[in-house]
């Protein structure tokens, strides 16, 4: 097996960076959306659910293209950032946003399953014991959603590690800047002389993903034992 090159190490580092940033960025939003869908009655709830799950069914390149339209220099959000001197497209930030958008449905889904498992009477008990809703959110819903939070975060992290379609559209494939493991593998596979290099990187990808999933299982079991 061919040893890893400096570019490969960069790709591994960037992959992990993107996955961590995308997961951390999505967590508060994911928690908020899961809370809204699970506990709050409002008109347009179904529309919100459809929109949240849309990236799960759309081809990632389509998501990437929409993000390009949104975050591009003349896009609705991109122009605002541009005025503030922040460039998003073809930067690591764009890769983080692409990963966050594509993995978001998985995070929300897991959090929602966790929240739906909470006995509504516990929430009622908390309120009647004097806790305002934000207190109940922090002291009852959040800790009891922990298994869903762990499951969602690890799924999102793993999904971010493998994100390709949307990332290549909005962040490009620039070695050392936006090139993550999948993009580097794609580049190796495109070149007829570098297939063995692709295999080394693929194995790294497998090891990292397995480590994340093992960690997820361990935390899930530990949490289940505590209950």
């Amino acid at each position, binding site marked *: 097996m061919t040893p890893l090159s400096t570019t490969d190490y960069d790709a591994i580092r960037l992959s992990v960076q993107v996955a961590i940033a995308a997961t951390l960025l999505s967590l508060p939003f994911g928690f908020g959306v899961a809370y809204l869908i699970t506990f709050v009655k409002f008109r347009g709830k179904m529309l919100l659910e459809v929109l949240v799950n849309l990236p799960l069914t759309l081809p990632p390149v389509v998501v990437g293209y929409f993000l390009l339209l949104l975050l591009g220099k003349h896009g609705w959000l991109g122009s605002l950032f541009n005025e503030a001197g922040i460039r998003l497209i073809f930067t690591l930030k764009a890769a983080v946003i692409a990963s966050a958008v594509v993995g978001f449905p998985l995070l929300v889904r897991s959090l929602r399953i966790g929240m739906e498992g909470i*006995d509504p009477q516990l929430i*009622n008990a908390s309120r*009647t*014991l*004097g806790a305002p809703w934000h207190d109940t959110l922090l002291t009852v819903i959040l800790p009891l959603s922990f298994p869903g939070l762990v499951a969602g975060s690890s799924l999102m992290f793993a999904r971010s590690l493998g994100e390709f379609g949307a990332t290549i559209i909005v962040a490009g494939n620039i070695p050392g800047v936006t090139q993550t493991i999948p993009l580097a593998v794609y580049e190796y596979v495109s070149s007829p002389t570098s297939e063995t290099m692709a295999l080394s990187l693929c194995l790294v990808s497998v090891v990292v993903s397995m480590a994340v999933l093992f960690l997820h299982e361990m935390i899930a079991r530990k949490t289940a034992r*505590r*209950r």
Partner: protein
Amino acid sequence: MQLFMKVDKRFGAFSLRTEFSAGGDRVGIFGVSGGGKSTLVSMLAGLVEPDSGEILLDDDCLFSSGKRINLRPEQRRIAIVFQQHCLFPHLNVKNNLLYGFKRCPSKQRKIDFTSLVDVLKLKYLLERGVTNLSGGEKQRVALGRAILANPRLLLMDEPLSALDDTLRFQIIPYLKSVSEQFAIPYLFISHSLLEMRLMTDTVLVFEKGALVEQTTSEQLARNRMGSSQIGYINLLKLGRGSDVGTMYDYPWGATRLLLLADSGRDGCMAELSSKDIILFKQHPEAISARNLLQCTVRSLFRSGRKTGVEMECGGNTLISEVVQDAVNELGIIPGSTVFAAVKASAFRILPG
């Protein structure tokens, strides 16, 4: 405690419409499942908003559709002991107990944590996780948690129905003593006539979303005697039993009773159904029933097709049920003497 509720609530095909005023510290809400008891409790606690109406507790307005007032649950200071204990599984016993206490403004804190822990005998459980407790322990912690929130009113929403018989009668003394000792009025919700009699003075009876009766718990039990499969349950306070061969002899007021069961305690309560008492006009020559009590008829009352006979017996009260034909035949009138025969096996000693 003075409670006034005039509320209207509709859930699909079910609707609850009621108006009542109830006073006292031990109020019961009685009715079969689906009668609207839990909806009423939820509206009172602020967990469900009525479609319209008004809720006043001690003249404080908790809800008024006309004045657009709807206090949030945490502002009402009404704690609930739920049917299922509803303890927070991520907190240990101590932190569950302190959950409401910490959120209660210090000037409203009248109940001391240590004294409550002593009354409920929870000291040895404090550091335990709540998932490792027995059903009775869980319900004691749930009760303590509600009391420590220093509520102005305690709602007990069928707190005993998830427990088996033994645990039920172990918890009842705690429910009574804690609310009495810390002077917290309560609203006790149940579909059990016996629990109503043990726990409440005034009872509101709900059926199909409407208040159908407002009475005392004793009167409710008498009214339901004729339609109840178990009749009226006499609750007898017995002294310590002594072994007399095949039976146990218990002092009951100025008289004595022979029972098959041994309580194993100094004093105990025993149940005796009005259906298990046979009345004789004169002392029978011989009878297999081991208890033959001379009683004086105090009063008669009708309940469905049955007639209840309230009797004085050795300083105690006993209620038997008979049909009207028997009343006529035996010539039972207030002041007359009758003999009540009860088998030794008819009594049921309550666990405690």
